[in-house]
């Protein structure tokens, strides 16, 4: 019952019901388990935690799970990790799993940190030798070398968690399940955790997060799933899923697509289906709309292709249907491969919202846009400070940057080369080097004349 091998995790119509414990049912459970080997639950004696959940997590993907308390997120992780068994449905997992459901869950207070590292590591599937070779890395990561030979009961709760995290991330799993543990520890340590998780993602580890820190889902995840009362409410682009979730939390009906748009049919269906990457995605609650977003030069002419270093302005026409007091305008520039080149918003830059009373225009002015040749897209959004979107337009503008240089990356810092001592270059006009061969021959010949 394995999913296709490109899936790290595959759930097929998984449901989980928890038994309600009563005085009598306990013995009845033991009896039925032993005699009938029948663990089917009568509906009145159980409560559904998950119903009919199906989704797949691809290999190497960072997958976020969001939802209210009690929506079944932790149950879902426990099912994936094998701690719990589904009541019905099938779960297929490809690869070694490490689950960070509770950090330091297996620590014994009476023995030392050193001994606990060994036991915890073995519990997570390492051998004694594996742990020996990683021991120093684990201790360095935890940052509590001075206390490593003290019994764990003397540790502060922060130290406890640091050690737990340090062991868990050094297990080298194929799949890492993380339940609400990134918010522990001090600022420095949680930065370190996030850096470590990003490194693991980079190395191709499949990550599944459960978190209430929606910012982390937006930043770290490739896709997200919103679980509502044990059912999948949405799967797909993390920014969008998180936003749909926020809309509902804020008491708005889930309206993934705004009525005024014609271009966002894709938003109707949870994004598992393949979409045309050129199609704009748009969502939001619609109190404020970005009616038109354009990329213009300094004279206000629309641009679709630009050279490197051109001055550009992103101009946004804003329609206010309901005046707002809590609002933030944001801009994101993305490379065609999906990586973020730059993103900012008015809140980040310390602009305090005062009024959004009637229609207007927002301009984001860049004296020079030093991008490398390639295809880019721009996201524009207006949302509340906690990220609930009024109108989010993903990929509202697509543009290409052309260049005669073949430098690489996404950004070209203003620069020049300087050589001193016995190092010298002869400058060649890049135009001549960079044209088709016949043209170059022609240029050379005409120069020789």
């Amino acid at each position: 019952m394995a999913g296709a091998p490109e899936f790290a995790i595959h759930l097929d119509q998984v449901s989980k019901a928890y038994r309600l414990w009563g005085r009598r049912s306990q013995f009845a459970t033991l009896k039925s388990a032993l005699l009938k080997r029948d663990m089917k639950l009568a509906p009145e004696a159980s409560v559904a935690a998950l119903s009919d959940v199906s989704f797949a997590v691809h290999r190497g993907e960072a997958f976020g799970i969001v939802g209210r308390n009690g929506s079944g997120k932790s149950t879902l992780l426990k099912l994936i990790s094998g701690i719990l068994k589904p009541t019905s449905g099938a779960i297929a997992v490809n690869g070694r799993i490490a689950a960070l459901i509770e950090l330091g869950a297996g620590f014994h207070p009476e023995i030392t940190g050193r001994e606990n590292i060994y036991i915890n590591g073995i519990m997570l599937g390492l051998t004694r030798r594996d742990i020996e070779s990683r021991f120093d890395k684990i201790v360095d990561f935890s940052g509590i070398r001075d206390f490593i030979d003290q019994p764990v009961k003397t540790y502060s709760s922060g130290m406890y968690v640091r050690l737990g995290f340090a062991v868990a991330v050094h297990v080298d799993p194929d799949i890492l399940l993380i339940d609400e543990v990134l918010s522990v520890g001090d600022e420095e340590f949680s930065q370190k955790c996030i850096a470590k998780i990003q490194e693991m993602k980079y190395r191709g580890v499949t990550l599944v997060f459960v978190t209430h820190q929606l910012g982390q889902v937006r930043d770290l995840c490739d896709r997200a799933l919103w679980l509502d009362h044990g059912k999948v409410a949405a799967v797909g682009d993390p920014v969008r899923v998180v936003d749909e979730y926020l809309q509902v939390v804020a008491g708005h009906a889930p309206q993934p697509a705004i009525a005024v748009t014609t271009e966002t049919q894709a938003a109707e269906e949870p994004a598992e289906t393949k979409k045309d990457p050129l199609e704009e995605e748009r969502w939001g609650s619609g109190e404020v709309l970005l009616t038109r977003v354009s990329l213009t030069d300094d004279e206000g002419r629309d641009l679709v292709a630009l050279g490197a270093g051109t001055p550009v302005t992103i101009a946004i026409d804003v329609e206010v249907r309901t005046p707002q007091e809590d609002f933030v305008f944001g801009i994101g520039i993305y490379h065609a491969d999906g990586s973020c080149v730059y993103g900012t918003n008015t809140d980040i830059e310390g602009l305090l919202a005062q009024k959004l009373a009637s229609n207007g225009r927002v301009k984001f002015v860049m004296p020079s846009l030093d991008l490398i040749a390639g295809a880019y897209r721009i996201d524009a959004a207006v949302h509340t400070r906690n990220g609930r979107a009024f109108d989010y337009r993903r990929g509202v503008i697509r543009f290409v940057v052309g260049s005669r240089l073949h430098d690489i990356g996404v950004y070209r810092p203003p620069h020049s080369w300087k050589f001193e001592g016995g190092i010298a270059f002869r400058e060649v006009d890049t135009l001549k080097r960079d044209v088709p061969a016949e043209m170059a021959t022609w240029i050379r010949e005409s120069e020789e004349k």
Partner: protein
Amino acid sequence: MNQLATLYRSRQLIAALTARDLKARYRGSVLGFFWSLANPLLLLAVYTLVFTKFFPQQVVTPYPLFLFAGILPWTFFSAATLESTNAITSNAGLIKKVMFPAEALPLVVVLSHLVHFALAIPVLVAAIVIFVLLGQTVLTPMILLVPVLMLVQTIFVAGIAMMVSSASVLFRDLRDLVTNLMQLGFFVTPIIYLIDRIESRPLRALLRMNPMTPFVIAYQDVLFFGRFPSFSDTFLMLAYAFASIALGITVFDRLRDTLAEAI
């Protein structure tokens, strides 16, 4: 069978947890291991006093040695069984939060009590040597059979522990039940008396039904009487060990999936 495979894979885990149990138990205590010996020694002292001074119709001499040979295996059995009622419930964190082979927990309990038992053997041997020097007993090569008996008994105890540990998660009364049964069990096992001296035939037959009876008699045979255990006791021990482990694995297997929820 795949349970045995799971257990084999988790052997390092079981070893590490057993070591952890032992370390945690003795860390910070001055007398350390002595405490696990204290209880059998106290029992030994009390019964020796009662049966050599208060009611001096000694069944066998040297009586303390006879007692010692029976008390140690009984203590192993009863302590491991009692503690296994808590083996899973007291490690709820592991079962609920970590992917963890739950069957390791009762086995860790059994193994750490086996270690206590094994550490008491040198004390017993020293006692035998003292009585040999006093000319009251003889040391025979039969003593070399002790490890074999321990192995068979460990299998027996492991089966019981698996049953008791998993069933007590769903049925908490089991712990009190087991505590009381163990007190009764001490007296219906021929530890402080010889089963052959019991006059009533039906009573003797009843005592024979106690699965710990052949084990205790066998230890007394090799340690005290210096003779090979009887054929029937040997057969019974093997049968009980096999039945117990088979039943233990079956029960555990059926309850396993409910453990993480029920705990």
